[in-house]
């Protein structure tokens, strides 16, 4: 299994009537990777996910999950899925709900029993195992939905907006579970527009716009390499400002403030020393990490891809 990608798609396309919801999706997700799928509303994120899961038939293109072509039953055996706005069989108790889904996975009864107890404990619902789902709050439903997606010890988990509707404690729980999954070597495909969540959980992200991948980014590269720096100081002359080109680019001066982009953190002390030597009164040097949000806006455009 080592050389097989968790997900591989090639020019996956879906047309609804006149409108192409997904224009040609080509991407690859490796095993054990937490992959974020980002894009504005209506960019085709959910449609793409549904095609992979066999809920929607692609108009053209091909894809496979864990080596099996999509649209057949084998491809779903090691998959977990939590849909967006998940609705439940609310006449079931938490235990019955998980039991039904476990049976649909074809799990062994004894394994299933143990797994249900383990997962109810993990999502903090052990005390509610015999309560009907209709009595559950939104956050509790999202937790039981998450437990449902993990029943079969999946190798690949799809989470569509898993933290929407959750309070901070619930979000923390989802984040911790995603980290645990990664530690176990499980791949996670995460749809979200909560960029802060993506930033702390994902290894890589794909930006999607009008149903196409416009950029794929390693999030680890965000941390140290590039950042914007704001300098606030008095006595900045044109000559001093021009001297800053040694450490950075995109220099913009505005009165007592200068913005520039540096390529390594080690430039900061050197810049400080340089300014002091030039007799400038330095009030603040503030590195501003390029956030995912900046990249998002830059990539999909301020119009949100409309």
């Amino acid at each position, binding site marked *: 299994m080592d050389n097989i990608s968790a997900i591989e798609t090639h020019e996956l396309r879906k047309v609804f009537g006149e409108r192409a919801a997904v224009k040609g999706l080509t991407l690859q997700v490796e095993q054990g990777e937490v992959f974020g799928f980002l894009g504005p509303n209506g960019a085709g994120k959910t449609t793409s996910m549904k095609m992979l899961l066999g809920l929607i038939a692609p108009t053209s293109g091909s894809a496979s999950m864990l080596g099996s072509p999509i649209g057949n039953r084998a491809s779903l055996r090691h998959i977990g899925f*939590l*849909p967006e706005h998940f609705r439940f069989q609310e006449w*079931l108790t938490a235990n019955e709900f998980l039991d039904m889904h476990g049976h*649909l996975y074809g799990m062994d009864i004894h394994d299933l029993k143990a797994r249900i107890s383990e997962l109810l404990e993990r999502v903090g619902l052990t005390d509610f195992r015999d309560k009907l789902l209709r009595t559950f709050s939104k956050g509790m439903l999202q937790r039981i939905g998450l437990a*449902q997606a993990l029943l079969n010890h999946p190798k690949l988990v799809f989470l569509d907006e898993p933290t929407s509707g959750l309070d901070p404690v619930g979000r923390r729980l989802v984040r911790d579970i995603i980290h645990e999954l990664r530690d176990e070597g499980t791949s996670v495909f995460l749809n979200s527009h909560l960029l802060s969540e993506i930033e702390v959980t994902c290894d890589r992200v794909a930006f999607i716009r009008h149903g196409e991948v416009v950029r794929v980014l390693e999030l680890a590269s965000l941390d140290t390499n590039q950042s914007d720096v704001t300098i606030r100081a008095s006595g900045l002359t044109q000559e001093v400002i021009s001297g800053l080109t040694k450490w950075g680019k995109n220099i913009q001066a505005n009165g007592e403030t200068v913005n520039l982009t540096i390529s390594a953190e080690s430039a900061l002390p050197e810049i400080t020393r340089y300014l002091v030597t030039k007799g400038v009164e330095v009030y603040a040097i503030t590195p501003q990490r390029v956030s995912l949000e900046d990249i998002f806006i830059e990539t999909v455009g301020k119009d949100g891809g409309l």
Partner: protein
Amino acid sequence: MNSIWTITRMTFREAIRRRIVLTGLILGLCFIIIYAIGFHFIYNSFRGVESTMQNAPSQQALAHIADTEGVNTLMLAGLYAVTFLSIAMAALLAADTLAGEINSGTIQTIVTKPIRRSDVVIGKWLGFAFLLLLYFLLMAGGTVLSVLFQSGYAPRNLLAGMALIYFEDLLIMSISMACSSSLSALATGGVVFGLYGLAFIGGWIEQFGAMIQNSTAVKVGIIASLIMPSESLWRRAAFEMQTPLAGALGMSPFGTISVPSPLMIGYTAVYLLAAVWITIRVFGKRDL
């Protein structure tokens, strides 16, 4: 197989938890109690007439025939009401099943398991078939037993008649499920009852046509039965259970003059299978 059985159990559990079984049971029992009481009084007034006529043996025989005809008509009237109630139950149970789960999205975590979509259709079908059997046995059984215990009368070919009525329930349920795979629950209800109405009026046109020996009217009725064969099942059931005299005279309001042939029953079976096949095809291909 395992996944079909899981879906069947869930369908059954849903009917219990959503109080469909409970309300069906309570109202079904009310129906049987009213029917049994009504039958008691009507039957006793028959007996009253009979006892005043016991002077001569010929009169006694005549009274016995009148008695049997009356009891048979009352039983068929009861079973006719049971037929209507059970097909309404069949239509309503199945109308929301696929449409509702597609609409709410609960279907999404089910069909993304390693199962066939046809397992969902077949599992639900079996669950409904079982629920309808219970409801039908309660209602029809209660009706037949109320008559049997009070008068000792049971119609000929009772089991064949009962099987045909249950078959009609299954037909309606299958059509309702087929519509539910692509229409909303409300539209499904509209289609199923619309078709039922067509079959109903077609059946009456055929009856009257046969009575006045107008072959064109009979043909109109047969065409209606081909479009929707539900009513022909009831008429075949009534034919099986009516008295030979009523059949010969064509007198009984619930009896049958123009009898649907075994070929028509075979056609209906094909119709039912086609409805299930269409459900599997449409639901299998549909974007969810």
